[in-house]
């Protein structure tokens, strides 16, 4: 082992730096216990910085790593996206992309295609994906919030095997969206479990393409998406329920209040801030619905699927596809940002 250490010393310089670092720390530190002595030896640069600059800038130092990661993976793509929406061409390099101004907005939204002067098809596709997504959201969000609430209320009671039931309902959240998609494809495809079972019972004569049939595809999209995400919102609501003081219920019970009245006059009002968070979070999540639906190959196109396909980053790149997709993404981002602001404003008012 000593030989290894010697070899490491000979091979590079960092062991010397490490020794010097610890040495400086050992000289500088004043401590009255072993634990704080060790921390002092390790953390002397921070203490030194505090002595020199005071406590003011310190929080920013701790924010820095997160800010770097956040900047790299959230802000940078956001600005790149804005860049793509204002330029045109097939390349992903800005030096090869010509300035387009608002052309991509026209390509996405106007009735007349600016390049060909003929009728535009892109606006129809985009509008349709927005409408389909809106239908999905309008059904999916209330249904999920309602069922998450019911589940949370039931699992908040003192029932047998409560922990088991909670984990059962939370389980789908831990599955990868792609796994969820494939799992339900096995049930819902033409030769899937559902069609075969219903046929065996004599309820239907021919197998139904649950995911492809236009009458069923939206229903099953809502169903599977709710199934996959219910547990997460149930957990938030459960936490909200447990934060309601017990003595309120005890006082109500003494006054002979019925259970229904306790629910509508105590539980729901006190749960409102949590419900609002759940509502807005699930709204944003529903607008972004993609992975499960893509894996199930449903026969409608969500806005995210539209952006994904149009961008040409997968499959066929088209001359203006990347710019059009970036423009669509920008519009959706602005809309979702408004939703988030609404939530912040509402919950802020509640807190005051």
């Amino acid at each position, binding site marked *: 082992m000593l030989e290894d250490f010697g070899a490491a010393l000979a091979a590079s310089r960092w062991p010397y730096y490490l020794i010097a670092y610890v040495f400086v720390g050992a000289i500088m530190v004043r401590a009255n216990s072993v634990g704080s002595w060790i921390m002092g030896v390790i953390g002397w640069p921070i203490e030194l910085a505090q002595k020199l600059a005071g406590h003011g800038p310190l929080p920013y130092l701790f924010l820095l790593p997160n800010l770097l990661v956040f900047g790299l993976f959230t802000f940078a793509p956001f600005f790149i996206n804005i860049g793509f929406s204002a330029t045109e061409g097939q390349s992903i390099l800005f030096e090869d992309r010509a300035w387009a101004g608002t052309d991509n907005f026209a390509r996405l939204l106007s009735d007349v295609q600016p390049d060909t002067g003929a009728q535009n098809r892109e606006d129809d596709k985009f509008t349709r994906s927005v409408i389909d997504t809106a239908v999905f959201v309008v059904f999916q969000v209330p249904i999920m919030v309602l069922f998450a609430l019911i589940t949370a209320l039931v699992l908040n009671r003192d029932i047998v095997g409560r922990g088991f039931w909670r984990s059962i309902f939370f389980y789908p959240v831990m599955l990868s969206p792609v796994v969820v998609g494939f799992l339900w494809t096995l049930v819902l*495809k033409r030769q899937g479990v559902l069609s075969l079972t219903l046929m065996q019972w004599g309820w239907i004569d021919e197998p139904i393409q649950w995911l492809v049939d236009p009458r069923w595809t939206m229903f099953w999209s809502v169903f599977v998406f709710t199934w996959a995400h219910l547990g997460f919102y149930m957990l938030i609501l459960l936490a909200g329920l447990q934060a309601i003081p017990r003595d309120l219920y005890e006082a109500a019970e003494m006054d002979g209040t019925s259970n229904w009245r306790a629910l509508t006059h105590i539980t729901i009002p006190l749960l409102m801030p949590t419900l609002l968070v759940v509502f807005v979070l699930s709204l944003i999540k529903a607008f972004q619905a993609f992975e499960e639906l893509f894996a199930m190959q449903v026969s409608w*196109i969500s806005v995210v699927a*539209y952006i994904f396909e149009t961008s040409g980053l997968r499959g*066929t790149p*088209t001359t203006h596809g990347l710019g059009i997709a970036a423009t669509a993404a920008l519009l959706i981002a602005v809309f979702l940002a408004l939703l988030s602001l609404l939530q912040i404003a509402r919950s802020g008012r509640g807190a005051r």
Partner: protein
Amino acid sequence: MFNHKMAAFAVLATLATTASADEIEFLCYQDGNECDVIAAMAADFTAATGHTVKTTTVGYEVVRDQLENQLQTGSAPDLARVTNLGGLNQYYHDLTPYVDTAAWEGSYSATLPWMRAPGGEDKGVYGWLTSLTVTGPYVNVTMFEDAGVDLPGDGATWDDWMAALGEVKGALGLDAAMAMDRTAHRWAGPAFSYGAKFFNDAGEPLLVDDGFKSFAETFVGWHKDGLMPADGWPAGSGTQYRNAAPLFLGGQVAMHMSGSWMINNYASNISDFAWSAVPIPCGPGGCGAMPGGAAIVGFESTEHPEAVAAFIDFLAQEENAAKFASETSSIPSHQGLQAKGVDYANASPAVSEALKVFAANAGQSASTTPQAFTFQGYAKNFVIYGVVPDYITQAITGEMSLDDALAAIDADVAAKIAE
């Protein structure tokens, strides 16, 4: 004569390498064993020239989705096996200064233009088409026998075939009779047969004409009549590609409109019924099939232009092309070999029979529907492959009238290829 040429090549190559021995990076994808065969041939190349080839085998999606971005950002390999032949033209490394262009023109004149820039000015030599693929139908022979229906013979039209398939469907109680991969690449052949031209006299894409319309009507009708399955084209959304092979493998349909690249897959995966490739059905416009293929091309960004050229030239030599065709059971793009025929020593009778049928399909298509070769050589054909299924599907499901769908195809293609 082969040995003579080979020896001369080796000497030349050895002379060239005394200067330097480079390592070149080759990005490859395979439907069967193509990359393995090339990697084995690369060993001979190294022995002859000293240059080494580092082959990386990836899925087709990696080449399709990532290669162009790599090329744009300057992080691409030295050479790759690609299918978007015309679309990547701007990145190609021109081999003209390094190879015997007259010999290349002599052997590959039919396929070299596919890799060139549009307009006919470009005379560059950019790559070697590893094999020629051709679209065409496979049939489940067992089903035809069980139903007591005879296979339509040579020169039969699509109408004859669909009538026969309808009988098979009725006799065996199938859900559908014929499946087609969801892309206009498979759709184009039959459309040519119905008289679709796809291009105007100036060589610009003009998709919707009488022939195109006539086939679109027929095609929608095939879905209405239940001859084509609901889990084929109608099950896809947007420009999405769907492979119909599972329907054929699963015995749900009696015909799969696919192409010669499926031969080896079917030969190794079908054991419970007899299958065969059949001559491409005809129509008033001829007997249309789409030719195509994957090519090994070098990129301009390479730091070893000479080694890249030497490797591609090595593979394109007649004896190497013959070896590749024989070991991968594929149709060679080398015109001399096409005329002479390849000895498929390792192939089963079913495979070599199918290869013969597809080679004949290519010939039929070349003589009766030359627009197939124009379409294959068109740099933006990939855009059209996706747009056509997008709207035809909406006509099938009734979301749009057929006339609207056809108008939409014209408008959308024009917008997507506009510069």
